[in-house]
């Protein structure tokens, strides 16, 4: 195949560029999904379905951006983002644990409210003027590894990416190797069992929802402060829902969550790379951009069908006969 040979010679540097880009960006794309899904894993394991993840991320992204700009500090931005997520988690907990409101309605309600209120907030704070600039953030180099060709990008990431990766084993250990985790999982299996074992079901679910909020908040802060450097209307673009899907097809195991997030990140980077480098010109851009979402649906269909959902998921608890 003479023609093939010529083509490969021609494309070689482009393919190298493409792969370099892919490895560099897949972790960055995976991080917000990973952070949110780690939190959701705890929430769902404890029997609380937080469909408000999208809204939590979006609100936190907005709050983190405003705080980061105002204080001229990324760290303060991140802290405010996390705090915002925790606050929403607390409100959700009050609604679904104390008032026993329907978890699906509350979650979706928060998502819808977040889109409108953050867009409004953006215009109230900055009017229609140009958005202010954030202070610069530097990527953290893992010294020798980051200079490896092609995959070196994996080791040249923003700090929060490393944080997310390090949280994975911690979350796994916490859920499957500690008494605390056993109690959390018991809440999702049968809260009555936890109750009779002296676990304060309400307090635990409050704590867990605050944790869920903190993680979604961190993910939101990452989106506006690290991934891009501004806030845009509805900038989460369904990542909260994807995180919920990832949680399910990872079967509530943080290690699987990491793998699934990485696959999603890969799909998103692939879409970005194909678009940027102008591969597959015959295929419309929109089709390429569908990749991560198709991946999510395929993952759900393939894996989540067989998943065993925590029996007490989305059921409010009350003592009864």
């Amino acid at each position, binding site marked *: 195949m003479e023609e093939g040979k010529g083509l490969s010679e021609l494309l070689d540097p482009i393919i190298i560029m493409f792969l370099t880009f892919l490895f560099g960006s897949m972790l960055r794309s995976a991080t917000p999904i990973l952070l949110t899904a780690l939190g959701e894993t705890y929430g769902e394991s404890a029997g609380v379905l937080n469909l408000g993840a999208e809204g939590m991320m979006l609100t936190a992204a907005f709050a983190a951006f405003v705080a980061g700009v105002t204080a001229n500090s990324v760290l303060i931005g991140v802290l405010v983002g996390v705090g915002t997520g925790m606050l929403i988690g607390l409100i959700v907990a009050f609604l679904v644990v104390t008032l026993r409101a329907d978890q699906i309605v509350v979650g979706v309600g928060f998502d819808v409210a977040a889109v409108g209120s953050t867009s409004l907030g953006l215009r109230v704070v900055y009017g229609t003027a140009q958005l202010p600039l954030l202070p610069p953030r530097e990527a953290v180099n893992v010294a020798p590894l980051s200079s490896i060709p092609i995959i070196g990008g994996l080791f040249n990431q923003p700090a929060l990416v490393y944080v997310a990766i390090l949280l994975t084993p911690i979350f796994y250990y916490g859920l499957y190797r500690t008494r605390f985790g056993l109690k959390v999982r018991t809440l999702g299996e*049968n809260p009555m069992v936890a109750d*009779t074992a002296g676990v304060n079901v309400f307090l635990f679910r409050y704590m867990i929802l605050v944790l869920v909020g903190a993680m979604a908040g961190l993910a939101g802060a990452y989106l506006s402060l690290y991934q891009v450097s501004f806030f845009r209307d509805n900038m989460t673009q369904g990542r909260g829902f994807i995180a919920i899907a990832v949680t399910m097809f990872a079967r509530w195991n943080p290690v699987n969550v990491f793998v699934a997030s990485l696959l999603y990140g890969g799909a998103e980077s692939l879409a970005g790379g194909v678009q940027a480098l102008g591969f597959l010109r015959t295929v419309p851009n929109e089709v390429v951009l569908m990749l991560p979402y198709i991946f999510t649906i395929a993952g759900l269909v393939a894996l989540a069908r067989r998943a065993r959902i925590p029996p007490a998921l989305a059921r409010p608890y009350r003592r009864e006969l």
Partner: protein
Amino acid sequence: MLDKAEHAIRTVGITKRFPGVVANRSIDFDLMPGEIHGLLGENGAGKTTLSSILAGYYHPDEGEIYVRDKFVRIRSPRDALKLGIGMVYQHFSLVPRFNVVENVLLGLDVAGQDVKDLKTLANAISQRATELGFTIDPWAEVSELSVGEQQRVEILKVLFRGASIIILDEPTSVLAPVEVEGLFRTIKSLASQGRSIVFITHKLVEALEFCDRITVLRSGVKVGTLSKSRLKSAREVVQMMFGAEIEPTTAKRVQQVGEEVLRAEGVFVENDLGHEALRNVSLTLHKGEIMGIAGVEGNGQKELAEALAAIRPLKAGRILMGGRSVLGSNPAQQYDLGVAYITDDRVGEGLVRDLTVAENFVLKSFRKPPYRKGLIIDWRRAEKEADHLIDEYAIVARGPRSIARTLSGGNLQKLLVARELSRRPIVLVASQPTHGLDARTTQYIHQKLVEQASQGTAVVLISNDLDEVFALSDTIAVIYRGEIIGLLPRGHATREQVAHLMVGLQEESGKAAELVQK
């Protein structure tokens, strides 16, 4: 600390109200150290409520509780745990997906019991089990254990939490006769170690056999406490329980078994997990016959009932009605062919909690006249019929438009029975028809079943209650591990024989069973 106290527990004037009922009315109860105290009463007498209050699951509206002669406030199961009160719930409080060790571990920290690591705990569990006279694999997932084993795990769990006061809620209701003996031995050895036991039951014989004292509750009120030594006759207790004497079900009816109506030939069926649940089952039912299926729960009874009702497909074999195969019927067609099914899962499979009495009543028949009128359902007719049944069966409900959820367990069961019998079925499959019901309702349903058989219906009575099987059946079939291992006409079967067959001790009674088989 245990020895010095006069009472392990004492309550004064415990009152608990639920919407519409007073579950406990000013109950004084006391439990001595090392005592086995029976708490006896019909369903709804308030036994579970009282014990749930002691276990911290409910808060009393009024009254005081003293533990080891000290006034205490028990606000939650956590408080009860710390006071050394442990409850073995009727529907166990175990997580099926966790292994034994994990289930035991849960709550140990709250009770102030510490363990070094899981391995140590596992060894301790095995050791404790041996001391109590049984073995358990600490690493087995609870879902893989039999009900009897699960109960032992539940007891171990309570012991590991350091409970000195143990409440057992109807512990024998889920066990086979052989397992009950083992449980009694376990409880007696616990009591001899100085632990105090509250033993809840509605089975009089058990309470008499086994308890030091018996407290009888009726409609939320304590009728009295009897010490076994001063008890004159069982009749006395029965009167305390029911107020007036209740005759045991009389099944003396003229036996008129007619022609064959249903025959199963070499039926094989799988359970939900894809395991073989029925193996080569052959049965012949005759007009007017009551065939009791005796067996320990989980030996294929449920699958047998579902195979007959065409809910579960056959893997092999066939079922004939009037000589014609009904293979390929769906449940609705099977119902139309005359097979009615009283499921043991009253509100899961039998009735819909959020529909009205009338809606539940026509659930199986609305497709056909008289309830179908053209394209719509004739609700006027349905409600009239339902109203009629409410009267006939003495169902306590405001009317045909009451939501099923608002009915008590016994009345829901009456509704289910009423619906299934209303079509005058040829075959009636009744699975645990009186499970969890009080004596009056049980007796009423027994009457209905006998009445139905006298009118020519062939009844398949599946029950865990041997008394029930013996009282009603013309023929007793024993099911064990998916096989019918004995078919005994009434009069030829002794309780001991059937009980042995039920647990697979075939040798002793094998001969007798063989003699009458076919």
